[in-house]
């Protein structure tokens, strides 16, 4: 289907004094008809370049790429190649051309010069296949991210390709949208025998693939079935990647000398594997008791009382985004805020620095009633970092961008310099960056510079909306490391909106769950994730590890059902295997 032979690719330098950047560094690879291949790699490993080479959007500097025997460097083949191999991109917004779903689906077939009746047949079929037939007349901006990507896939499907390449097409979606897209891709591969190349840095998505390619520095460094690839945990970590959580747990247990047969890629497999070793060790069943972290001593820094917010009151677009929310946020805590898209998370945090005004109710931050007069002071106390904050960079140099906020606070030049230095240290950024343009940095660096701009205002409360969206596993881990550091060293209260339950479980002191604008729960992660059934009703997941242990406990095995992290899990299993029962000391760390 697709063949790479000795392929190199260099991006032409933007100016003559820069060297050309080599994105693909000698790839020879063959993808067979009907295969489902996952390509993994950290940001900047060359995986997107590889996708573009397949679609003849780029042509190799050296070597050849064939798609069904067609050489991509031969100009006259380009249209035939793109007809055979369709591509779905990362940003759902930037690939929808038309103002209605229907006309967007028709765009590809129209370009192929098909007969209107045939176009009609194909788009109806494609829309039904992806489950969007009811939205045919809708405008794309009214759809959710997952729906938009399904439209994009249907648009490709209507061209009847034999292969679809998805270039990080799930990375900007929430968990629900991601599931929608992945299920669809899997069915396409199975039912319609369409070859799938799925480029991603979410390891869990690669589990179902027939084959995994791991890229780093423009090369394919590992190749094999998921089970083999994911057993090479240390190599993957070196490539800036990670393995699925349950696989990590199995790896950790093996390191501690616990004999396991085989490896596990999914919760179900891990459950089987653990059941086997537990039964073999003859562990007796035990009565369960739940434990929870002691609550942080209560010194509320934010008091929210009966907060209601209605968007566009009195119009047909009226929407109650927050409904009578009352809660306290404690000084120095890390609070996770979870809830499905549209549950009111963003609306809630935008009240904290006065971007939104309550329709009714009140918000008090550090003794300050939120209102018009206190706006300036409020925004210094509360630092709000939106999703993809790097999109807000605008200055000529990194330094100027970072001091944009602090310079408006009436600080002395010396104090400002001092602060910049401090935040660079917290974020692990080098001072050499300061004179560079923010636009020439890498994605991860940009994100940190944007965060630095808010941190330099030294807010007492830091609010982050999906701070790790779009970052690879290593980048995400770094973000959480410095957030924890900031929380420990300067006692900053941190609020994190996240869809990643594993992160919430691992780093947050408390979790607030929002649903339809109401505060559904506010408790320790242990207690919140203990209510799996309710969370499921709210369309929320629980951490994989927690799910695994709950399943085990439900089948009568003597494990705690409230285990949150890999470390706790490994401790628990190790302790049980030594016949001592769960080690609570270990769990609290």
């Amino acid at each position, binding site marked *: 289907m697709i063949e790479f032979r000795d392929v190199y690719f260099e991006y032409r330098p933007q100016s003559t004094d820069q060297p050309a950047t080599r994105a693909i560094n000698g790839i020879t690879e063959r993808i067979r008809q009907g295969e489902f291949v996952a390509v993994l790699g950290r940001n900047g490993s060359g995986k997107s370049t590889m996708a573009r080479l397949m679609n003849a959007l780029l042509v190799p500097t050296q070597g050849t790429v064939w798609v069904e025997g067609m050489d991509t460097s031969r100009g006259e083949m380009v249209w035939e190649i793109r007809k055979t191999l369709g591509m779905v991109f990362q940003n759902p917004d930037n690939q929808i*051309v038309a*103002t209605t779903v229907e*006309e967007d689906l028709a765009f590809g077939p129209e370009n192929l010069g098909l007969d209107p009746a045939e176009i009609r047949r194909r788009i109806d079929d494609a829309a039904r296949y992806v489950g969007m037939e009811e939205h045919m007349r809708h405008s794309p901006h009214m759809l959710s991210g997952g729906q938009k990507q399904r439209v994009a896939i249907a648009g490709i499907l209507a061209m009847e390709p034999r292969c679809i390449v998805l270039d990080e097409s799930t990375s900007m979606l929430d968990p629900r949208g991601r599931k929608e897209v992945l299920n669809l891709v899997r069915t396409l591969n199975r039912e319609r025998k369409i070859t799938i190349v799925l480029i991603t840095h979410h390891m869990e998505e690669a589990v179902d693939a027939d084959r995994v390619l791991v890229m780093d520095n423009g090369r394919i460094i590992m190749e094999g079935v998921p089970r083999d690839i994911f057993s090479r945990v240390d190599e993957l970590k070196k490539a800036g990647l990670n393995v699925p959580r349950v696989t990590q747990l199995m790896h950790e247990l093996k390191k501690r000398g616990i004999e396991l047969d085989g490896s596990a890629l999914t919760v179900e497999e891990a459950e089987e594997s653990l059941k086997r070793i537990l039964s073999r060790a003859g562990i007796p069943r035990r009565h369960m008791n739940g434990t929870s972290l002691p609550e942080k001593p209560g010194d509320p820094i934010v008091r929210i009382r009966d907060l209601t917010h209605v968007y566009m009151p009195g119009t047909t677009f009226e929407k109650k985004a927050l409904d009578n929310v009352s809660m306290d946020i404690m000084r120095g805590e890390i609070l996770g805020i979870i809830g499905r898209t549209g549950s009111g998370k963003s609306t809630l945090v935008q009240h904290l620095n006065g971007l939104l005004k309550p329709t009714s109710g009140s918000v008090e931050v550090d003794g300050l009633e939120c209102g018009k007069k206190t706006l300036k002071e409020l925004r210094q106390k509360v630092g709000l970092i939106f999703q993809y904050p790097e*999109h*807000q960079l*605008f200055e000529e140099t990194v330094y100027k961008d970072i001091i944009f906020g602090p310079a408006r606070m009436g600080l002395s030049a010396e104090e400002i310099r001092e602060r910049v230095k401090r935040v660079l240290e917290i974020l692990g950024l080098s001072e050499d960056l300061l004179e560079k343009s923010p636009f020439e940095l890498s994605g991860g660096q940009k994100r940190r510079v944007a965060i630095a701009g808010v941190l330099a*205002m030294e807010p007492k409360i830091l609010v982050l909306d999906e701070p790790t969206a779009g970052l690879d596993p290593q980048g995400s881990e770094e973000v959480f490391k410095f957030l924890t550091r900031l929380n420990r060293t300067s006692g900053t209260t941190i609020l994190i909106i996240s869809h990643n339950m594993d992160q919430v479980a691992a780093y947050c002191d408390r979790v607030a769950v929002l649903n339809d604008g109401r505060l559904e729960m506010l408790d320790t992660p242990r207690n919140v994730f203990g209510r799996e059934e309710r969370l499921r009703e709210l369309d929320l997941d629980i951490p994989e590890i927690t799910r695994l242990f709950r399943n085990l406990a439900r089948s009568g095995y003597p494990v705690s059902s409230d285990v949150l992290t890999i470390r706790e899990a490994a401790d628990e299993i190790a302790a049980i295997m030594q016949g001592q029962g769960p080690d609570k000391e270990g769990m609290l760390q």
Partner: protein
Amino acid sequence: MMRNITLGQYIPGESVLHRLDPRSKIIWTAVLMVAVFMIDTWQEYVVMGAFIALLLVLSGIPVKQSLKGLKPLLLILAITAILNIFFVKGTPLVELGPVVITYEGLISAVMLFFRLVMLVVSASLMTLTTTPMAMTDGIERMMKPLERIGVPAHEIAMMMSIALRFIPTLMEETDRIMKAQASRGADFDTGNLLKRVKSFIPVLVPLFVSAFKRADELAEAMESRCYRGSKGRTRLKQIRFTMLDLEASIAGILFLALLFGPRFLA
């Protein structure tokens, strides 16, 4: 929130107006608007008003929905009309010092108000019943003859429809960037004009950067879906001048005769 501008947004439907060829809708809307400017007796106002009301009914669009587009314009309309009251000379009705309200002024204000309302309603009747795509298609086809003298008709139409597609997206983005910069201490509401204009730089730079990035990505996505200009391209919806359009045109001519006929008879 800027993202919910309702003026003339397409409302799906199957009415006669929805089914007309966009070209006949564009032409007849233009004719109608010229006619609205030409009427001046109250009889003509009544006939015109009745006709537009009839079209509204035919379109099957709830009256409330179609008048909603007027709301944001109401203030401007009212001000224009009221100014007329004071500046038209004639028989004085009320005299308050230097301010004179005349009978003619009052009449002309009321008429102007209705004239403007009819203009807006007839224009939005077109946009309410025509998808932006159909509209740009219509424009493209109408400009087709100009291609011979070098007017890139297809490209212009494509640009227009992409612009329409991205307006809501860019609005949302502007909103988001403004909020983010406000969180960093940017102040958009105080200071003199120069200062305010300057305060928009932190919004405009990221907005342009992102718009260019979007343009790049969109171009890539379009190319990978085999887009190569109008060459060899067919359309899902062939716009076709049908019997319905012929009937509508005859009805339109009859209406014009009814409206302006009396002028010639007199």
